[in-house]
């Protein structure tokens, strides 16, 4: 008797717990950013903008701009901040389960491979601001405009160097590999570590090769990447590639670098420059900004990776663009946001505050920081830049980075690196369904 009663009580308790939780989620839903809940709050639309936490200083999401936008259009922009290391996986997952944000900030080149640009994102060719864009290439893929940015200032990749140290030691920018080794020797003699290699972060080991390969290809075999991507040529086919890998390794074996190449990480770089412990690093010019933030008196510059004679400066594809997923639940409002930032006044405000090279015909470029002006004068204007290998890649390159680490651990020769990468590369291309593989 008693037990039967208790059983009944139990099921009632159970049922009530379940129903309470399910109704609670109705109110719990107001905490969440689901699009389903977003509209019902009295007609005000809330846009979800997803962005990596490491890009928190992006001009597009500064509070004053968001507030002004809300005031003008009654559309609220809510930021979804994603931990940097998980940005790609989280965005991929959200796109896969149709929980797409309304706007995403990401890098165009990576979006092509990581986020399946064509399938997931809106084409923006016909947006009101599109006609005012000066450089459409940095925002497009496959002939269509997919992203938005106010800048056409692509990052440069090369050898970031401390100008003051160079001046003190009377060094000039090397134009080939031998000269480069020579200045390394001089820097080492003065007690400073010539090059900082943080190859615990494997991607950093690819800066030299990516620029070197691209520079060589542009000058000697312009159709190489097309042929590579259709399986008509392999990475191992070009003997010079082997040389470039040897070069980078040699800088290490000659003792021109930090001792702990494989356990030092990228986040140590700024500190090393600030303490004047190192003179150079194979990196992108974003590093210069990072150091300048901490100490505006440091003068850093960048010169091309000296893998060949008179190499061109590597240009990374532009990053930090805004994209609109096709499955956004508030397409019109999202496009309104882009319109707003594209408006002359707002765009000018952003370009001025960040020192960008404007990408709008009616927005003027402000005075650029010294190192950027240098780059424009010495490399962009005389057309001595070349898009790095990354711009031509359709697949994930993590395995290549790992193979480079293996090389530095003393395990692989350059031939073996290229051969293993060839195998992996064709397998990845095949998995992806690229023609020819």
């Amino acid at each position: 008797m008693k037990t039967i009663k208790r059983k009944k009580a139990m099921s009632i308790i159970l049922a009530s717990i379940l129903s309470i939780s399910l109704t609670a989620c109705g109110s719990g839903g107001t905490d969440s950013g689901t699009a389903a809940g977003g509209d019902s709050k009295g007609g005000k639309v809330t846009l979800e903008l997803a962005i990596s936490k490491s890009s928190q200083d992006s001009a597009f999401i500064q509070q004053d701009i968001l507030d002004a936008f809300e005031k003008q259009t009654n559309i609220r922009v809510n930021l979804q901040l994603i931990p940097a290391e998980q940005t790609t996986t989280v965005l991929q997952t959200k796109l896969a389960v149709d929980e797409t944000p309304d706007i995403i900030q990401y890098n165009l080149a990576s979006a092509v491979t990581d986020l399946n640009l064509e399938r997931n994102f809106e084409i923006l060719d016909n947006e009101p601001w599109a006609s005012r864009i000066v450089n459409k290439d940095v925002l497009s893929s496959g002939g269509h405009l997919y992203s938005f940015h106010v800048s056409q200032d692509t990052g440069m990749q090369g050898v970031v160097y401390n100008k003051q140290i160079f001046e003190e030691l009377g060094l000039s920018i090397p134009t080939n590999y031998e000269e480069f080794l020579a200045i390394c020797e001089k820097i080492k003699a003065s007690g400073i570590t010539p090059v900082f290699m943080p190859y615990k972060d494997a991607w950093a080991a690819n800066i030299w090769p990516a620029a070197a390969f691209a520079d060589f290809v542009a000058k000697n075999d312009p159709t190489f990447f097309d042929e590579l991507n259709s399986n008509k040529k392999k990475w191992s086919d070009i003997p010079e590639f082997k040389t470039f890998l040897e070069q980078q390794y040699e800088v290490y074996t000659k003792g021109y670098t930090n001792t702990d190449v494989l356990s030092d990480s990228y986040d140590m770089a700024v500190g090393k420059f600030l303490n004047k412990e190192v003179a150079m690093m194979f990196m992108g010019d974003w590093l210069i900004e990072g150091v300048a933030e901490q100490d505006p008196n440091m003068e850093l510059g960048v010169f091309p990776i000296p893998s060949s004679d008179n190499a061109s400066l590597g240009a990374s594809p532009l990053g930090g663009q805004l994209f609109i997923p096709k499955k956004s639940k508030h397409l019109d409002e999202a496009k309104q946001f882009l319109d707003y930032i594209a408006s002359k006044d707002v765009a000018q405000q952003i370009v001025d505050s960040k020192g960008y090279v404007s990408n709008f015909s009616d927005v003027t470029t402000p005075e650029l920081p010294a190192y950027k002006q240098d780059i424009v004068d010495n490399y962009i204007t005389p057309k001595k830049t070349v898009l790095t290998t990354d711009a031509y890649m359709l697949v994930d390159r993590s395995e290549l980075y790992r193979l480079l680490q293996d090389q530095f651990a003393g395990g692989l020769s350059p031939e073996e690196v290229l051969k293993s990468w060839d195998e992996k590369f064709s397998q990845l291309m095949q998995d992806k369904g690229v023609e020819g593989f």
Partner: protein
Amino acid sequence: MGYTRKLAIRNYIVEGFLILASLIVLLPLVILIFGSFKTSAEVLSFSLSFPETWQFSNYVRVFQEGGLSRAFFNSILITGVSSIINIVASSAAAFILARRETKLSGTIYMYFFMGLIAPMSIITTIRVVQGLGFYGSITSVILIYAALNTAFSVFLYSGFIKTIPRALDEVAFLEGASVFGVFFRIVTPLILPVNATVAIMVFMSVWNDITIPVYFLTDSSTWTMPLSIYNFYGKYSRDWNLIFANLVLTSLPVFILYLFGQKYIVSGLTAGAVKG
């Protein structure tokens, strides 16, 4: 007399050895704690040295920039509710499974146990939650955590409930108690040391988790404390001193819970006496 003396000496040796061993444990923790009070440059040595000046401002900064008061509240809510649901449900289930020795109960036990081995898939879990209509809510996260830890809790409780003699139950039944009564009033107090251990373990595993909130809580203002650490992964460099301060603050609640629960683990001595 000789025997007690030998015992005393043995105890001293053991104690001394353990104190030395505890240094191995303490050293990295000391580095962590000292580091949290150092300046950005000082902390890079990762050494045992005392901070030059004790930068309490690190903690203030971490608290504010990390939005720790909100995050703390979120963590307490999510961790607390899911842990309670998990513990009560799992210990009840384990109790029945341990007492009923039929093929069915054995099969159900295996069903739970497999949860320790089977991998969790984020995408399919999202789909389930979407299907139920509450993706993005705190409730979904609470239930997910409760589910994820079920295998672990059932497993732990089963092992220990078996050591509580059936005879006690039978006495209670004969006195007219229901199965609930037996469970809550007799068995639960007896497995207090296990309860404390499981409670702390479950609480800790939910508290420290950094994956579920990223995928299931779209509104970052509902995020939990451990995620606040990403506020201090700078764009170009890492402020280790702030990261350490954040780690200390995030770990503090669990540690306090442990100190509090330790009393109950110790009081397990009375459990053994009952058998007498």
